[in-house]
């Protein structure tokens, strides 16, 4: 099969310099490159899939970590970043169009704008990360809430919630724990706690509005109704349909951290716009681990994308591209779209929970 030569129309038999010898036609070369890029993007998706999978597993098993943790993320910055990346995808796609019709200057400007958007995204990410680092809201062993975040987590009004700091995130404040145990026992009518003393303990440990409630008999789970005291159930528990609550009841005897531990004993934190009612969940650092894992890997991809865009601008300035040959622009922009797309999933999954 004879070589079909490029459409530069000059009639000379030499193939263009961008044409590789083992391809027969430019369109075969273009189709091969594009398919290779799509396959590469598939591997990128699967690389992130591991983290999405970890997200799904922990969120399914420990929804409360995510509900509690996400309130420390700044939706405003996240939304702005989403807009920045969406805009960058527009300029990126437009630059391919400009390459196709040979508008070199426009293509370079658009690629540059795209790169600036990437820079803006990283700048905002820097602001967000700085806040998290300042507040000690990090992963695993580094999770040491300080300052503002600590107020929310072990806030004055919520001293009963216990200390969540430190690697293990265990509730370890002595007397607080004792109160909690009493409250659990009372609330769930355990035999040992069925007497008035235990109920009283729970009462003192609980806060005012829980104690003020008076509609317990209908709300109590049928199995334990006999041992139940009216005053132990807080309003928000009562608001739940009785059948649904009874279905969740067995979790109360499960391990710590899964349990809606003693609603009466809940932390009510309200500081700087953060509002939290209910127990502080264990192991919130897992949420921040997943947050930093996903956004960190994504951030690395943004940086790589910016390098690719810079390289495209460099080659465009060297006049390497033409309406006949713009494969690198097309592929680089495909990569940029993937980076954008992953953020489109990350934003709602991390910032817009609950």
């Amino acid at each position: 099969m004879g070589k079909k030569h490029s459409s530069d129309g000059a009639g000379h038999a030499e193939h263009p310099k961008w044409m590789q010898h083992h391809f027969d036609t430019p369109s075969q070369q273009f189709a091969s490159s594009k398919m290779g890029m799509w396959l590469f993007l598939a591997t990128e998706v699967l690389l992130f899939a591991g983290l999405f999978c970890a997200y799904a597993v922990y969120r399914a098993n420990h929804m409360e970590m995510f509900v509690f943790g996400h309130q420390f993320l700044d939706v405003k910055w996240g939304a702005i970043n989403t807009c920045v990346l969406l805009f960058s995808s527009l300029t990126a796609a437009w630059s391919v169009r400009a390459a196709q019709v040979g508008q070199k200057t426009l293509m370079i400007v658009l690629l540059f704008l795209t790169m600036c958007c990437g820079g803006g995204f990283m700048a905002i990410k820097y602001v967000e990360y700085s806040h998290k680092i300042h507040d000690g809201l990090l992963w695993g062993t580094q999770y040491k809430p300080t300052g503002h975040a600590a107020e929310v987590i072990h806030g004055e009004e919520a001293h009963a919630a216990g200390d969540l700091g430190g690697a293990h995130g265990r509730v370890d404040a002595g007397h607080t724990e004792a109160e909690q145990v009493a409250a659990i026992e009372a609330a769930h009518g355990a035999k040992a706690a069925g007497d008035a003393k235990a109920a009283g303990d729970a009462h003192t440990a609980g806060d005012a509005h829980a104690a003020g409630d008076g509609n317990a008999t209908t709300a109590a789970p049928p199995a334990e109704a006999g041992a139940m005291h009216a005053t132990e159930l807080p309003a928000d528990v009562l608001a739940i349909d009785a059948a649904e609550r009874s279905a969740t009841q067995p979790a109360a005897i499960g391990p710590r951290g899964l349990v809606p531990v003693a609603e009466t004993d809940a932390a009510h934190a309200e500081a700087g716009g953060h509002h939290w009612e209910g127990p502080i969940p264990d192991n919130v650092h897992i949420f921040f681990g997943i947050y930093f894992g996903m956004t960190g890997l994504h951030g690395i991809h943004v940086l790589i994308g910016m390098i690719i865009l810079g390289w495209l601008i460099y080659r465009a300035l060297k006049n390497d591209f033409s309406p006949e040959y713009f494969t690198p622009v097309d592929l680089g922009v495909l990569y940029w779209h993937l980076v954008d797309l992953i953020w489109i999933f990350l934003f709602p999954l991390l910032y817009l929970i609950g």
Partner: protein
Amino acid sequence: MNVTDTSITPADLGGYASREAESENFLSYPKGILSWLVTLDHKRIGILYLICILTAFFIGGMFALLIRTELLTPGPTIVDADTYNQLFTLHGAIMIFLFIIPGIPAALGNFALPLMLGAKDVAFPRLNLTSWYLWLIGAAFTVFSLVNGGADTGWTFYTPYSTQTDGAIISITMGVFILGFSSILTGLNFLVTIHRLRPPGMTWFKMPLFLWAIYGTAIMQVLATPVIGITMLLLIVERTLGFGIFDPALGGDPVLFQHFFWFYSHPAVYIMILPALGIMSEIFSVFSRKHIFGYKFIAFSSIVLAILSFLVWGHHMFPSGQSQLANFVFSALTFTVSIPTAIKMFNWLATMYKGEIVLKTPMLYALSFMFLFGIGGLTGLFLGALAVDIHLHDTYFVVAHFHYVMFGGTVIAFLAGLHYWWPKVFGRMYNETLGRIGAAIIFVGFNMTFLSQFVMGSQGMPRRYYNYLDEYTIYHHISTGGSYLMAVGFFLIAGYLLHSLLKGKRAPANPWGGNTLEWHVPSPPPYYNFKEAPRVGDPYDFSEIHWDERIEGYVFRKAEGSA
């Protein structure tokens, strides 16, 4: 290439037309070490890979001999327990990540794929070279862990032990991460090559079955390997930054690591075996002088295996505490794997039936493959059964099963392929008698080594143990003896293959009478593969291929020429 006239030239017999033309063969053009290190020729990259993976195989094999020697007696024999743990970890990691995963696709596949397809090269030659350099870097990281304290986790790197143990876990996992990149680039390259670089006439169902197998392998390489990448990255941040996702002390889930690991590593064992099955499809047909039986079934069974590989990872984790339902589903799916595998086995049997079987070295390996892989596959059913697995889990039964599939399957097929394509790659014939003796020694040594492990495993000998009860001594003796016998066999093979490079008889273009396109070009092939796009026919039609005494090889000739 078909010759009907009577004036025969060397070119008509499949060789180079002249001395001058012969200097165009890919081994000698262009010249110089540097031209090899920056080569973009898929055939040369295949040879670079071949040298590297054989080196890795040698190192891994030395570790295996040390392990077997240590296990010759209960208690300490030659090394202490910690060293022993490092030995089996590095044996596993080197054999799997450095030798057997790239073994057939990247070495033999790189050489054969474009030739069999009728293409001038793979789609992305520079990416191909990059993947070889990535292999070197990954290998350097892996070997660095050897001198930097070693790793003692086993090749599976299970958390939480791997996040706590002292030892060079980070460098070895980084090595695995980089080797994964290398594997992805190879797979990606092959997928695009098969899709986009087929010459006119090379339709999907005219492709040799080896290419179907490589295609299925490449799908798995591209889709599974990124998952081990992120898993290794998470393990590294777990160790360095205290990430907590896999650490139960931090509320993390170590079983999640096992899921991630096996989501890659089960497809990975199919990445190892599927190209081996492809080599078998070529050899059984060529050496039975008979058209392959059930072409489409074999072709599609490769794709089915690639798909099923993603659905059975949980059978490595039956006792891990995953749900009963998951166990049940994974067990059932595991049994379905036997269907595409059995399709291949029975089709090869049917291919041999009433064929003119030629017992040359590659065919001897193919026959021993059928026997050994048969045992390996059937014992897999034992392990896939939930109740039996509780008894056999983490015993030598698993070790024996794995080696029957991976060694008896893949390594034997690799040897078969190496002997099959050796004359094409280097243009030299090896000593056939020594080849047959080598195949026999490997077969006997292998069965001594691993059949005894089935017995001790079913009697409860746990895998990876340094010490054992006296009653297992006899099986360990047999096993160690077998491993020494295999070592003798491998040194014999290495000896006659190296000898053939220097003193071997010149190989004809088609020593075995194959009809896939690589046998239509001279041995070794010219650097440009094909001057013009080759004429594509049925790759398993042997009716126009005849033995020619003058060159001691086969030539392509229409029926009226001879016979």
